[in-house]
């Protein structure tokens, strides 16, 4: 019974997350679509949580060692790479903020 209860609440959360996902990006302008793709890419790196849980199990056999190490390595690359790439993209948008127009005129003068 407890298992079913948990499943129902999990499904509830899942459905709410679908609507939230649609809602939250419908306001993102086209020029930020590339960082958006990259940012969501970093977020699904949350699979690292599952990977850690695998590798942190006690009494692993050789198989579990291999898959655990593979999972944590792959997921870490996803997380770090995803956030760093997104940051590099967004850095460029930020630079121009605050006096971009003035900066241009100075440059032209």
């Amino acid at each position, binding site marked *: 019974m407890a298992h079913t209860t948990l499943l129902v609440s999990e499904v509830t959360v899942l459905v709410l*997350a679908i609507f939230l996902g649609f809602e939250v*990006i419908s306001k993102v302008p086209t020029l*930020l679509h*590339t960082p958006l793709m990259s940012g969501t890419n970093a977020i699904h790196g949350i699979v690292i949580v599952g990977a850690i849980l695998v590798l942190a199990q006690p009494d692993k056999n050789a198989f579990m*060692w291999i898959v655990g190490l593979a999972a944590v390595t792959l997921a870490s690359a996803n997380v770090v790479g*995803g956030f760093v790439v997104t940051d*590099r993209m967004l850095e460029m948008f930020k630079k121009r903020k605050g006096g971009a127009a003035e900066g*241009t005129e100075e440059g032209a003068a």
Partner: protein
Amino acid sequence: MSTNVTNLLYLITVVTFILALRFLSNPAHARRGNQIGAAGMVLAVVVTWIRAGSASWWAIALAMVVGGGSGAVAARRVKMTAMPQMVALFNGVGGGAAAVVSLAELHRLLPQPGAPEVDISVSIALSALIGAISFAGSLVAFAKLQELIGGRPLTYRGQQLANGLVFLAAVTAGVALVAGVQDEWLLWALCGAALLFGVLFVLPIGGADMPVVISLLNAFTGLAVAAGGFELENTILIVAGMLVGASGTLLTLMMARAMNRSVASVLFGAFGKVQQGASSGRTVDGSVRPTTVDDVAILLAYAQKVAIVPGYGMAVAQAQHDVRGLADLLEQRGTEVTYAIHPVAGRMPGHMNVLLAEANVPYPALKEMEEANVEFRRTDVSLVIGANDVVNPDARANPGSPIYGMPILDVDRSGTVVVLKRSMSPGFAGVDNPLFVGPNTMMLFGDAKQSVAGLAAAVKTL
């Protein structure tokens, strides 16, 4: 740490992820949002690690250093132009991780008494299936964009049938697993078939469509992670994975719409097949007018209004800084310079905006398609820098063209069109472009960076 505390801390992480996506609606806050999301991710990792205990802590640390380190180095070193394939690669490893986690979970569950709950085995099968497809598909997308393999679509007779059979094999293995056949090899077979399907399904898709595919695979990885959440009974994976799954799906639809194509036609249409029925015999006729840097410089220097139309060629040549330099020179002479940005110019939506932002091009000079198209009629010179399909008039006029119906930038309506191009080869989509032989078109062959730098030098002497 109790389960409740863990879950509350996970909730904080989820909120940071939502904020990260919210903040992306404004370029000024977007970067901070991303940092908040990264902080949330760190929190989730720390919480999980504490909760999981100290077993094999050194192995976890080592794997994180190796994976995170290589991810960081790759992400730091990659050129802005290679971003799309980098995103594909990071997406692929995420999908791979989800698939591997389900292999581990099944391995852990099987020896336990009684069959796993149905919802658990369904999630394991789904997570492995979608994760493996995303892994293999992303690697092929990476290889295509990195030009390790040809960007042209690969097609053969019976392709869709073969793909369908491979997919069916993967699903059958999954169904058997759920139905209670307790054999780990089934999941391996499922993963194998899913990997093969991932490769087969991306191979026939042309390079020009890769952005849509990467976005779709990104959504897939999100779904694989959400399924992983069900299998591990871990809410944060469900929420974060589904957020990505839903937003990625919407983004995919938006991108396909910007190209005026359905997602189905992207995935199954093998776009850019050079032969397209009746239109196959139709090649562009007319002659190309090559020109020189000096001639174009004079043209530009005495124009009232110049529109710069960047495309992937500008990205490849890393010409954005030189383009900005040229634009500055022209503006000093009193010429009005704008940039016409097609929503899918380059290999990803917003690709050109990112590159021009890198070169500090001011926002107001960037014109989106609708606005730019209104202005082409009173534009003296359109400088097309490495763009091809997004300025192909066939999209307007030739119903036989594979890109017919795609909204384009109407550069052919401006006074003179100067196309900077490396050679006469067709664009990434492999479609002929009558613009190049248009009566008001001149071709300036060569590397975009060198050509633009040459133009700037020539304009200076005038």
